Structures are given as structure tokens and as C-alpha cells.
């Protein structure tokens, strides 16, 4: 067993897939940053809000005023360096840190996709993605046509985990037997050509999409791994992601996934892709130089392998933490994030905060838009950790304004996957006295229904 493992870790493979992956990643990240910037979202999502919702333990991560633009610029520059493979190690570490910092600034904008980018870029810090077809190799006059096989397999493993866990999350009664939330989402896409008027409102279509989505997520890693089904699998990847792109506002993510799954293809496919790039570079008539060839060798493998092994153990275990919490996961969202639960629910809420003077019993209600952006208000209204953090913010705010004996209560209603809205938070609990922690929040009212499954 150990010998086999040693043999595996020592085996080498063609470096082209990892080089293409690096280039694709760089292009996609650069495009994402430019898109985010040009849509004015830096200002809208990070600078305009007076208040940011922080991740527990990361309250110190805040937007840094107009320097936030600099942070995005740094992140974009790092993506460019990754793309061309220049100072790769510094670039990828810079990218990982700056991107993750951006994501930690406000959890309102949390998306599984962003988390995926953070995780992937962390992983890429340890990979020799600049070994081949990179500026680094050119400057060093040495490229490594052979790299350890595991450095490519590990990316496949991460991609496979994302898909498979997203599939597991769909194994629940709402998704499979009620076709929720697709039953809500699809009919409103009636203006898509051809299928908009013919399929989108048909019940069988909602079920077909739910089940095929689940089967796709569970099966695609294996179909991509197996050589005979690989081409078919890639065609499915493209169809699936393009379809989600048409239906939902999910930005760059579909393209990122399509480009990423190319890594499953053999090296000769990647060599052909690189030949296209080579053709472009040659047409620019730049000075070329002959590079000596070597096999890549990890000098610190003894440290790196255990780190990455631990990293994957965490990745595989972390999404199951929700079983430690009572109540319905979709309702409490305790252990919901960072678990590849993608597009699983249609949840909306309404939270009306009441500030009470505990002595005189005088009270008044808060207009959330005085403190939050509409987007923040929307996200806050159905997530308990947001509600608690905001309640404390309100409490502190009114206390600093000279209000006495401040208590903060909330009237909150939440509707999940087409059920009628129900009271969500105990209206008699003074949230200002409640503390954030990883423990169960016992002031979340019970979900008067059951969703079976994982």
C-alpha cells in the first residue's frame, strides 16, 4: 500500500494540462475582476454600505476605503501574472490572499463560486503550474516537461468533490419530489426563445431538470475521469453550464467550470491548445530561446503532501458539520455555507426590527434601508447569523445615540421553497443579549415541516 503510494507520488506526467489550466485560470480571474470592477460593484457592494456583515472570527477584515480599488487591482495584476506564468509563486499567493480578503470583507456577497476560487487558488499555491510554457521557464531557460502526476490529479479531485457534493446536496425531498426551487424559478424565465413558452412552465420539465441536475452532479466526475465517456462528459459540462448561464444570473462561474474541466483531457489535447498559443506568440516575432528540459522535483514534498492531505480531509468532512445541529438545515442554515450547496433553495424573508427601552417600554421600529443596502437587507432577512449581527449593530448604534436600556427584538417571517411564510425568530428574545457562536441558536423558531434527505 505505502509502496504503491510512494510509486504514485513519484510518477510523472506531461506538464501541458497544468500549464493550460494555469492560463485558463488566469484569463478567467482577470476577466472576473475586470467585469466586477466595470459593473461598479466594488463601490456598490463594498464601499456604499455603512456596515458590513462579517464572518465569525473575521470581524477585522473590512473594506479599506478607496484603497479597496487598489486591492482589486492587485488581485487582477496577480491574475495577469498567473496567466503569463511570471513570478508565479508570488503571484498565486498574492491572488489567494487578496481574493480571500475580498470575500471576507462582507458575507452578504457569499457565493459557493467565490469560495471555490479561494480553495482552488490555495491549492494552486503548492502546484508547479509555471513549470511549462511560462515566462518563468523562459527566464530560467529551463522548463519542466514532466511534473508529478499528483499535481494534476489533485485538481481533478477538487473539481470532482465540488460536483459530487453538489449532487449529494440535491438528494432531498424538496429537490427530487417537489421539484423545488426549480418549479418557482423556471416559469419566470418565460421569455427565453423557443423553450420559454413551451417548456418552462411544464411540471414534468421541472422534475426532469431537478433529476437530471442531480444525476449530472453525481456522475460527471466519473464520466470525466473515464476516457471513453470523457468527450461526452465535456459536451454535457458545456450544455449544463451554458444552460444555467441562460437561466440564472451566475456571472462568470459557468465559464470558469467549463475551462476548468478541460484538465481532465489528455496531454495531447493540451499540447494542441498550447500550439495555438505558440502560433500567436510566433506571429508576434518575439525573440525565442531554446530551453533545457528537466523533470520537476519537489524539494519540500515531505511538508507539502501532508498539508494537502489534511486540506482534503477538511474539504471532505467540513460539509457534513450540519449534522451536529438540530432542526432543518435549510431553515436554520447552521452549517450551510462552504458545503457546495448550490442553487438549492428559494428563500426569502422579511425582518422588522423593534428597539425597546426595557424600563419605559417605549419602542420604535427601524427602517432597514437607513442602515443597509437593499441587497444587504434581502440577504439579512432570512439568515440568522446576519440577523444577530445586525441586531447588535442596531443596539450599539442606538445606544451611542443616547438611547437608554436598549433591547432589540425582531419580527421576522421567512418563506422557504414555496411554503407560506412562517415566523422565523422568537419575537420575545432580546437579540442584543444573544452572542454569536458556533453553537445552535435556540431563538430560531422551529420549521413546521420536514425536508427529508441529506
Amino acid at each position, binding site marked *: 500500500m505505502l509502496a504503491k503510494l510512494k510509486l504514485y507520488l513519484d510518477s510523472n506526467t506531461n506538464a501541458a494540462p497544468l500549464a493550460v489550466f494555469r492560463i485558463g485560470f488566469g484569463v478567467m480571474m482577470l476577466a472576473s475582476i475586470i467585469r466586477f470592477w466595470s459593473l461598479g460593484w466594488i463601490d456598490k457592494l463594498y464601499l456604499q454600505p455603512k456596515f458590513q456583515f462579517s464572518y465569525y472570527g473575521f470581524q477585522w477584515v473590512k473594506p479599506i476605503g478607496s484603497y479597496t480599488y487598489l486591492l482589486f487591482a492587485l488581485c487582477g495584476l496577480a491574475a495577469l501574472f498567473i496567466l503569463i506564468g511570471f513570478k508565479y509563486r508570488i503571484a498565486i499567493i498574492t491572488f489567494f490572499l487578496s481574493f480571500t480578503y475580498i470575500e471576507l470583507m462582507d458575507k452578504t456577497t457569499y*457565493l459557493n463560486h467565490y469560495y471555490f476560487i479561494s480553495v482552488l487558488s490555495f491549492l494552486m499555491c503548492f502546484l508547479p503550474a509555471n513549470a511549462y510554457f511560462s515566462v518563468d521557464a523562459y527566464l530560467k531557460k529551463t522548463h519542466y516537461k514532466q511534473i508529478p502526476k499528483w499535481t494534476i490529479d489533485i485538481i481533478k479531485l477538487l473539481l470532482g468533490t465540488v460536483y459530487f457534493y453538489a449532487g449529494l446536496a440535491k438528494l432531498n425531498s424538496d429537490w427530487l419530489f417537489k421539484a423545488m426551487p426549480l418549479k418557482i424559478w423556471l416559469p419566470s424565465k418565460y*421569455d427565453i426563445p423557443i423553450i420559454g*413558452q413551451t417548456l*418552462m412552465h411544464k411540471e414534468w420539465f421541472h422534475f426532469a431538470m431537478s433529476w437530471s441536475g442531480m444525476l449530472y452532479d453525481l456522475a460527471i466526475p466519473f464520466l470525466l475521469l473515464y476516457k471513453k465517456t470523457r468527450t461526452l462528459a465535456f459536451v454535457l459540462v458545456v450544455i449544463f453550464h451554458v444552460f444555467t448561464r441562460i437561466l440564472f444570473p*451566475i456571472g462568470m462561474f459557468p465559464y470558469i467550470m467549463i475551462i476548468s474541466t478541460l484538465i481532465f483531457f489528455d496531454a495531447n489535447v493540451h499540447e494542441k491548445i498550447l500550439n495555438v498559443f505558440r502560433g500567436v506568440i510566433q506571429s508576434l516575432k518575439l525573440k525565442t530561446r531554446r530551453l533545457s528540459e528537466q523533470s520537476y522535483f519537489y524539494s519540500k514534498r515531505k511538508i507539502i503532501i501532508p498539508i494537502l492531505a489534511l486540506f482534503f480531509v477538511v474539504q471532505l468532512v467540513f460539509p457534513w458539520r450540519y449534522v451536529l445541529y438540530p432542526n432543518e438545515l435549510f431553515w436554520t442554515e447552521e452549517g450551510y455555507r462552504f458545503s457546495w450547496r448550490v442553487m438549492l433553495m428559494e428563500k426569502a424573508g422579511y425582518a422588522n426590527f423593534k428597539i425597546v427601552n426595557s424600563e419605559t417600554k*417605549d419602542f420604535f421600529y427601524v427602517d432597514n434601508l437607513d442602515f443597509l*443596502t437593499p*441587497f444587504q437587507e434581502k440577504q439579512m432577512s432570512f439568515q440568522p447569523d446576519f440577523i444577530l449581527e445586525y441586531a447588535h449593530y442596531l443596539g450599539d448604534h442606538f445606544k451611542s445615540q443616547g438611547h437608554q436600556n436598549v433591547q432589540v427584538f425582531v419580527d421576522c417571517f421567512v418563506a422557504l421553497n414555496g411554503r407560506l*411564510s412562517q415566523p422565523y425568530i422568537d419575537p420575545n428574545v432580546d437579540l442584543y443579549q444573544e452572542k454569536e457562536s458556533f453553537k445552535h441558536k435556540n431563538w430560531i423558531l422551529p420549521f413546521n415541516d420536514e425536508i427529508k434527505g441529506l
Partner: protein
Amino acid sequence: MLKKIILFVIVVIAISCSSSDDNGSSNNDDGFDRTALLTNVADNIIMPAFQDLQSKLASVDAATTSFITDKSTANLDALSDAWLEAYKVWQHVQIYNLGEADNLGGGERGFVSFFNIYPVTVADIENAVNTGSYDLNTANYHDAQGFPALDFLIHGVATNDTLPLDKFTTNSDFEGFTTYLTDVVNQMITLNTAIINNWESSFRSTFIANTDSGVNGSFNKLANDIVYSYEKDFRAQKIGIPAGIFSNGGTLPETVEAFYKKDVSKELSLEALSGIENLFNGIPYNSVSSISGSSFSVYLEFLDREDLVTEINNQFAAGRNAINSLNDDYTQQLSDNSIQMTAAYDIIQAAVPKLKVDMKQALNFVIDYVDGDGD
């Protein structure tokens, strides 16, 4: 192989990028007929209401002219009656921040900024009539024009005066007040004419044709308007703010609608609720047609959400009952028994999550204008 894959990817991406908005008719027997909904709302609810407002404002104009010719108490009373009739119709049109109405004013309140920002700032009016320099088109005068300004001009007493009529007769600025009255009426007529002309000339067809499902689709805007109007124009402005719900330290009687006329606050609230209910249920304005047409309730029923239609209509009815139990004069109600007003607010409030959460989810419209990425 590679070439085939690349070609395939390009084709599919091209399809995905061109999928935005080039659909023609949306009258499919299987799907929900949005064109019918938008046509009914435009032809039987929105446009008749704006047209009625136009004729009621013409009566206000005529009454103003008579009053200026003969500044008698009787003529001022006649102007007051005309004002109230127009104000009641206003409650039905204020929901529709669409087209030209939305372009006016610029801010989120659109044309409401020129018609019904209250409490009116009397100091601004007095200063304006005294100096004679003012521009009703600027944001500074949003709270010094429209129905609330007329309310003060017709029913309020200016500084150092004893009677409402004194503004136009014995006050040292009586000429200024007279001009200001005319200017306010003219401004309302000009703006409403622009809105109606826009609807009649082009916006009606634009509105009906825009069956797009996105943020800027007509249905999405209409859905946002009904929610906004219920929550802000009706619930907060008319009941919540005066009852002191949003402020610390007691009630705010000076913020009631029609503060100077006083005994019509309730009547106006009930009209506003009717306007919202009629839109929800597709009931034609002033019975221009005897049968109700397609609207939110029909759409919800199409989606098998009769439960929600019933819940929402029950909430509307409960709100109506609660308002009916209040004094005609809200300032009186607040001084007699403000708890009753707060209780009415709580009942009215209960419909907000139904509209904003349940209906929003069932119809899957976009409630705000945030265009961030989803998961």
C-alpha cells in the same frame, strides 16, 4: 476532435449570449398570458385613473379661478371640495411610478415627489410667497407643492393670520399666496398631462409589449410598485409615521395626511387601500368595465396559489376594518387613543410579509434593483 469541441463550445456560447430579449408574442395558451394582464391593468386601471385625476384637477383649476375672481369663503369651500375629490383619485394613481411618472423627480418616489410629500413645509411656502423667488421643479420644493401644499393654502392659517381666507385677502403677502396657489395647481396639471400624454401616445404599447421577465420588465415593475405603495405610501406614511412607529418619543400628529383639513385622513387612507386592492384583484377603476380582469390574483391562481390570494385579500379586509374603527380625523384619534392607531398599524403590517415574501417568491419577481451574481 479539438476543433469539433471548440466549434461546439462557440456555438453553444453564442446561443447563450443571444438569449436575452428577442421574443415576439407571448400569447401562448399553455403559459400565463402576461399581455392580457398588462393590457387589463393599463386600459382598465391605470389610464382611467390618470384620466379621472386629470378631470378632477381641471375642476380644481376652475374652482381656483372662481376663487381668485371672488375671494369668498363659499368659493374657498368649493375649492376645498374639488381638492378632496382630486386627492381621492390621487390615491389610486400614486402606485404607478411607471414611464413618464417614473422619470419625473428622479428619486425613488418619482412623480409622488411633486404631488404628495407631507408634512408640507409651511415655512418654505411663506418664504416663497414673501420673496417671490421659487422654483417648484427643484427638490427643495418637493415638500411645498402638490396636494399637501393645497391643503395648507386652502385650510391652514398663515403666520399672524386668523382665518385660512386671510392668506389671500388681508395678509401682507396676499398676492404672493394667490400666485403660489395658481402655480401649485398649474404644476400638478402640467405634470399629470405629461404623464397621460406619455401613456396615450407611446407608453401604453411599450408597457404592454414589455413582457420581459427581467428587472425592467413591466410586470416586475408593477409588482415592485404595488409592494412599495402598500409599504411606504400606505402603511408607513398614512398610519405608521403618525402613530410614532418609526420614531422614539410619542406620536407625530403633524405628519398625518391632510393635516390642515383634518377630518379626511381616514377617507384618503381607505381610498389608497382600495387602489392597491383593486390592482391586486384586477378590478377596473371606477367600474369602467363591470368585470375584473387579469392581475396579481389571477397570476397567483394560475400558479395554484389560491391559498395566498385568500390570505392577502383577508389581510386587506382586516386592514380596512382596522381603519374603519379609527376617527375620521387622525390627529383626533392620536390624541384620544393612539394605541388604537398602533394596533391598526400592526394589522396593516401583517400583510407586508405576505406581499413581500410570499407573493414575491410565488411570482419570482426581483424585489430590488441589485444586480449582483447569484449562486
